[in-house]
């Protein structure tokens, strides 16, 4: 029957193709694990013991899981800062800077309103402040790209350093709390405006922020006309222009949303973890978010999974130092290896016969049917 064949063709192709798009990144991560093992062996550590420690410290117990999830939450948010513009064909790496200005905005709002309004309202205002600050920060990179043709990768990266300098200037000067001596920091946010933890856990509400933002981003990109327009423009800008799509507005809107996600990560770090602003907010969550987005192939649901995996690896950083005498940069080396392997796997799409649609078999099915 023709309709069955058509259905079969329809079902077969996405299945094998989607299998490929799952198998290749997993294969790449496995290959990275093997290379990392060799690296550890060369550095004098037993690779199997290192894997074991990472697993135990990341996912071995409920306590380990909580540590992992605490680190995964900001990653989910910063990853969106790269993943969303990537659908438009832009490579944005200003995650760290957007996170910092988001944290800065949250602290400014929190210090201004903390104690005067109910905590929930202050938190809402802090979140809004961070969304707007981070959004505008990355939107600037998008606007420079669209109106001036400035390379968005370089401009967004420069904005990282400018954001950090701005933050340092403020916490060393106007915002500095003289009573806090261990490092230059802002005043502390009023405890009523701290972001609490989920019931019976140490995991803060940032996890929910991350999950909700990822789900919304997925729906926006995959299930709305806006997302369709963005993906079309990402596929072929000229075609999109000819079709009458407002490429400029799309660029600005997507960059704003992307930056606001990273900004929210800054608010979460400030309100739930640091409680005040200082250099600790520059903790590589931004750069790790770039990696997450690329490994997840810029799919907002896959970024959640990859964030949890990477969060686990980050949580295991301390144990590598204590039990295996490996420096804390080991985690960074591992991230680099994973990133390189995943990029190499991009060149393998279509190289394996198993993942291709089987034309001959399909033709045979027509005859048999």
């Amino acid at each position, binding site marked *: 029957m023709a309709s069955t064949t058509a259905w079969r063709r329809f079902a077969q192709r996405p299945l094998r193709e989607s299998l490929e798009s799952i198998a290749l990144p997993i294969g790449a991560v496995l290959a990275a694990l093997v290379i990392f093992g060799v690296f550890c062996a060369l*550095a004098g550590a037993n690779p199997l013991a290192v894997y074991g420690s990472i697993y135990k410290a990341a996912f071995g117990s409920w306590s380990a899981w909580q540590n992992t999830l605490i680190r995964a939450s900001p990653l989910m948010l910063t990853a969106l800062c790269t993943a969303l513009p990537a659908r438009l064909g832009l*490579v944005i*790496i200003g995650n760290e800077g957007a996170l910092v200005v988001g944290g800065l905005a949250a602290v400014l709002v929190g210090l201004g309103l903390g104690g005067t309004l109910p905590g929930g309202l202050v938190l809402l205002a802090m979140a809004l402040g961070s969304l707007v600050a981070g959004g505008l920060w990355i939107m600037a990179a998008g606007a*420079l790209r*669209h*109106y*001036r*043709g*400035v*390379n968005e*990768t*370089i*401009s967004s*990266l*420069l*904005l*990282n*350093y*400018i954001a950090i*300098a*701005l933050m*340092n*200037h403020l916490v*060393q*000067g106007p915002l500095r709390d003289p009573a806090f001596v261990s490092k230059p920091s802002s005043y502390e946010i009023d405890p009523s405006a701290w972001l609490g933890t989920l019931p019976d856990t140490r995991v803060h509400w940032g996890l929910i922020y991350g999950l909700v933002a990822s789900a919304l981003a997925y729906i926006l990109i995959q299930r709305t006309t806006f997302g369709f327009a963005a993906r079309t423009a990402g596929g072929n800008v000229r075609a999109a222009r000819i079709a009458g799509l407002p490429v400029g507005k799309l660029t600005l809107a997507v960059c704003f949303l992307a930056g606001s996600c990273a900004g929210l990560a800054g608010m979460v770090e400030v309100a739930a973890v640091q409680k005040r602003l200082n250099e600790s907010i520059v903790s590589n969550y931004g*750069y790790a978010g*770039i*990696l997450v987005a*690329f490994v997840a192939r810029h799919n907002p649901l896959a970024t959640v999974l990859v964030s949890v995996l990477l969060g686990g690896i980050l949580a295991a950083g301390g144990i590598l130092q204590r039990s295996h005498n*490996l*420096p*804390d*940069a*080991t*985690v*960074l*080396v*591992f*991230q*680099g*290896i994973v*990133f*390189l392997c995943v*990029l*190499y796997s*991009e*060149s393998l*799409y279509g190289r394996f016969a198993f993942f291709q649609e089987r034309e001959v078999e399909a033709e045979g099915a027509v005859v048999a049917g």
Partner: protein
Amino acid sequence: MATEALGWWGVPLGILAGTLRGSVPFLLVSLGECLTEKSGKINLGLEGTLLFGAMSAYAISYLSSGIVGPTLAPWLGVLAAGVAGMVLGSIHGWLSQQPRVNDVAVGIAMIIFGGGLANFFGKPFIQPQAPHLPTLPIGGWSDLAPVQSALQISPLFLLGVAIVPLMSWFFKSTRWGLYVRAVGDSPDAALAMGISIFWVRMASIVAGSFLAGIGGASLSLFYPGVWTERISSGQGLMAVALVIFARWRPWQCLWASLLFGGAQALGPAFQSVGIDSYYYLFNAAPYILTLVIMIITCSPKRTLAGAPGALGQDS
């Protein structure tokens, strides 16, 4: 601060001295990136190369000073930095030329990887003191000690300045320079000429990374002359932006590097005369300058004059 004795004259002197010291990594990295981009590929990973080069130079200089003496050791360090750069460059060169692999993405991965390697191997070298490169004093005419101590030229600066006319001549007048330009401007034409696109790009990227590695050696063995985990602070990326500003011409890379070195010296120079309330904002000057320059020089309508034709195109 030594320059305090000079009063306000300390500011221009500080900026001049800072320009001479701070422009070296910009110069070497931008020349390396210029060569790389002329062949049609972008290497953002030079930021990681700079960091890894700085660490390698410092480590080798420290480790070998007991064996070959403190005069030769820093030069071994410089060589090691170059070789370290070549290793990272060959990874970038191979990976970025695979089908459907984006060279910008590979560059970001190489920043993380190179930075990770540098911090991994560099941990034991944060404390010890490695022998530095010698400097050429050009302030000998002055009796003032601050002037003498400020005006020091690194041999690596002279090396960079010497490479500028060489590279310019290489692009203009040599067969190999023509190959590089052909591959970067029109890969199809290069292919028709019987040139191997892969190997020309590979050679350009590896040679460019060699220069960037040496730029790292200048950071750790000359100025600031220590090894810390954040020593490169984005200078490798600024150098990439600088190449765009310099329109892919070696001579303009030199002028642009001096400009950036000067911008970087603003914060410390003002701090030395007691203006330190805006220290961090002055330190952001090079980044803001880069951004402003890119805004002025770029245009959405046309590709930049002098840009290699195949730059940013998928191979």
